[in-house]
């Protein structure tokens, strides 16, 4: 039984280290929307495909608002106890240990549940009282009810393109939240992300973005998933690190996208067209 380890990001990052950097390039009104939702104490739902920047966005907003961030990656085995907390044995005593959700509520932090659809429906139900006007967390084992302070915010993310309908977020959950749609960024935004956040050469960034735009126009039947901005970043970073751009793109974009040999060859021809 493993407690999910919360990941805390202090307000403000250390830009010298790529991983601690919390800067972000906005696509639309998402920054304003998040800030306003936080002020109005509304929970937020981030919808969008993988790799478009949802997590980076939340980290940025937490830093911007000066609040601690507690992230919980959700999965099928996540139980309500994993979120809320449980008793542990210490010697002959039983000691209560707060779960990440409870800690967030107590501290007035931002609690981010990533890929919430992966968790079971009976786990997610625990969140409902926190998401409407009551903003309460019931801890049955302690017989307590915590009232969330104004600074607390619940943020969920999910990928609606996931095929199986059995894994859909229930309507009762969805309707309690304000949603932001994250789609693939516009070319200018994607270029800026590569150049400003990941220090990719502007000419290289331009080529990569054109390539990604072209691949994303492919019909869904040809490729099971589209090129995520994350893949572009990986290609850019490999190139920045000294790899030839063509090889970097094949490794970061083509190889992960398809296992079919004919499709691979076709993708490589595409890459050659754009990056050679």
């Amino acid at each position, binding site marked *: 039984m493993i407690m999910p380890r919360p990941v805390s990001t202090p307000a403000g990052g250390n830009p010298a280290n790529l991983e601690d950097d919390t800067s972000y390039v906005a696509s639309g009104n998402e920054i304003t929307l998040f800030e306003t939702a936080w002020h109005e104490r509304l929970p937020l739902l981030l919808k969008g495909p993988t790799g478009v920047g949802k997590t980076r966005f939340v980290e940025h907003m937490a830093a911007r608002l000066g609040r601690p961030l507690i992230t919980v990656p959700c999965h099928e085995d996540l139980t309500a106890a994993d979120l809320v907390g449980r008793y542990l*044995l210490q010697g002959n005593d039983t000691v209560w240990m707060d779960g990440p959700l409870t800690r967030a509520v107590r501290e007035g932090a931002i609690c981010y549940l990533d890929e919430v659809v992966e968790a079971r429906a009976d786990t997610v139900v625990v969140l409902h009282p926190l998401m409407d006007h009551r903003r309460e967390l019931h801890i049955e084992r302690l017989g307590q009810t915590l009232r969330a302070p104004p600074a607390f915010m619940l943020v969920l993310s999910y990928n609606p393109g996931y095929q199986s*309908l059995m894994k859909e977020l229930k309507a009762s959950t969805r309707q309690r939240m304000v949603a932001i749609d994250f789609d693939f960024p516009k070319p200018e935004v994607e270029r800026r992300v590569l150049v400003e956040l990941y220090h990719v050469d502007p000419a290289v960034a331009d080529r990569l973005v*054109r390539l990604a*735009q072209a691949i994303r*126009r492919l*019909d869904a*039947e040809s490729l099971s998933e589209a090129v995520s901005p994350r893949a572009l970043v990986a290609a850019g970073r490999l190139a920045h690190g000294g790899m030839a751009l063509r090889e970097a793109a094949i490794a970061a974009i083509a190889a992960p996208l398809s296992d079919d040999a*004919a499709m691979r060859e*076709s993708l490589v*021809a595409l890459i050659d067209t754009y990056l050679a």
Partner: protein
Amino acid sequence: MMVRAVAMASPVERWTTLAGALAARPLSVLAAAPGEASWTDGHRLWLDPALPLAQQREACMAQALLVEAGSLEYPGLRRLVGRRAAISRYMVLELARALRRSAACLPVEFEERARGWLSGVPESGSVEISLALALDARTAMLELPAHLGRLRPARLSWKRVAGRAGQILRKTPMREARLESIDEDEDTEEATGKLLRAFSSPLAGAAGSLLLKILGLGRTPGDTRDQDGADGGAMALGEETMMSDAPGADAEQTARRPTQGSAKMPPARWHYPEWSVAAQTYRPNWTHVHEITPMGRSMAERVDVLASTSIRRQIARIGLEFARHRAQRDGPDFDLERLVRHAVGRHAGEVDERLYLATRRTRRDLALLVLLDVSQSTGDRDAQGRRAFDQQREMTRQLLKASVHLGDRVAVYGFHSWGRHLVRFLRIKHFSELMSPAVGRRLEALEPAGLTRLGAAIRHATHLVDHDGQTRHRMVLLLTDGFAYDDEYEGAHAEADAGRALQEATERGIACVCLNIGSEQDDERLRRLYGEAAYLRCSNLHKSVPALRRLMRSAMRQADSRQRRSPNRHSKEAARP
């Protein structure tokens, strides 16, 4: 026994992804005759294989961009037929417009070169403007580099007309032959002359003159803009809206080409063997299977004839897999978390006995491929005027709804054939595709045509579900009228080959179910092939539903037991906790 499909790759196929990306829709790339100019009809792109690679690439990109911009779809294109200079001007204008539309996704070098070709070209905001400018002989313009290929308005317009024409003329072989020869012609002026002759003959009768009217051919007051050297009276075509392309009829036109020499057939993606019962051996690479995505048609308001919950309930218990359940009162393992909680709870005086882990079949893991027979025979009407095809289609809809609701992976393909070189699969919905109105529209637009080469169809369906199913349980559900018949494919031979194909599928662990709804034909044969367990014939939809579960379950049992027995199968074992 190794039965494997082979995907062929001709050198020009390497441009497929590039073409599809720029066209923003799937484009099959095929080799034109060497030296023949590249062109596209919006779904297939013929590239000149004799060109150097860099030029092939540019031709591919230019043609694909035209497809994306909608330059080829405009009905007014007819007005360009027979006017070489106007066609050239139109292509230049449209390529410039297409480039502006897609600037963000073009390779840098190509964009620069294209700007060089297109400098000084007047800006056109739409197809209509481009056409108007192109028809005006006063517009002076450079020509595009020859390697980019050409536009063929005669072929494009004819494709649109052929659908309707084919329906009217199906019963007249002579006229059909004339139509085919027009289709092949290079010279468009000669083509339209032939077209007129075909329909003005004394045998044309009412159908012929109706067709002339639809096509807008025949003498009309001349077009005053007609100063381009085009044939004066004959080509003043009206602006009537054309019927949507009926895929069935178009298929017939396409299918007739093999008899005129297989040189013109586009290469198939998959080849399958066929079992010859006489020779007791396989004929390798005997059948050629193509896949296309058919166009859709909007659905009229329809009342659901069948409550889909009934089907859903039937298939809900099929294809379930093991899933772990915690906190059970009994089971083979301890649930560790609960055990700790129990130890802790004892101090507090709480007792909870649900300490065990149990595994039960509750998780869904089924991939279902619905294979719909779209051959001509399903379109025959019975005494009450109903078609088996409509019932089959309705069943398909219901199955699709139920499967999507339950979260199963489901794919729907239609199939028909014209001889062994053209077995065609119509992609209604592939496995990874999300359910959408487009799927429903494609289903709606299907019309029965062609014949039924059942063996090849089963083999390809097996390949699809095996390859894309990605689940523990896989099933092919065939909806057919039972009439397996094709060119050199009938009687004992067809029966044996289809049976063999079924065997191959079952050996690979794929369950096969056959539903024959609303048709009397060839029932006995199918029953023999599938066996009583997995075959059902019903006169109507409602009666078939209650038996579905039994059918599916027994088919799965069969497949499971066969699979376990054959060790060389590269199966994905279920994760048994």
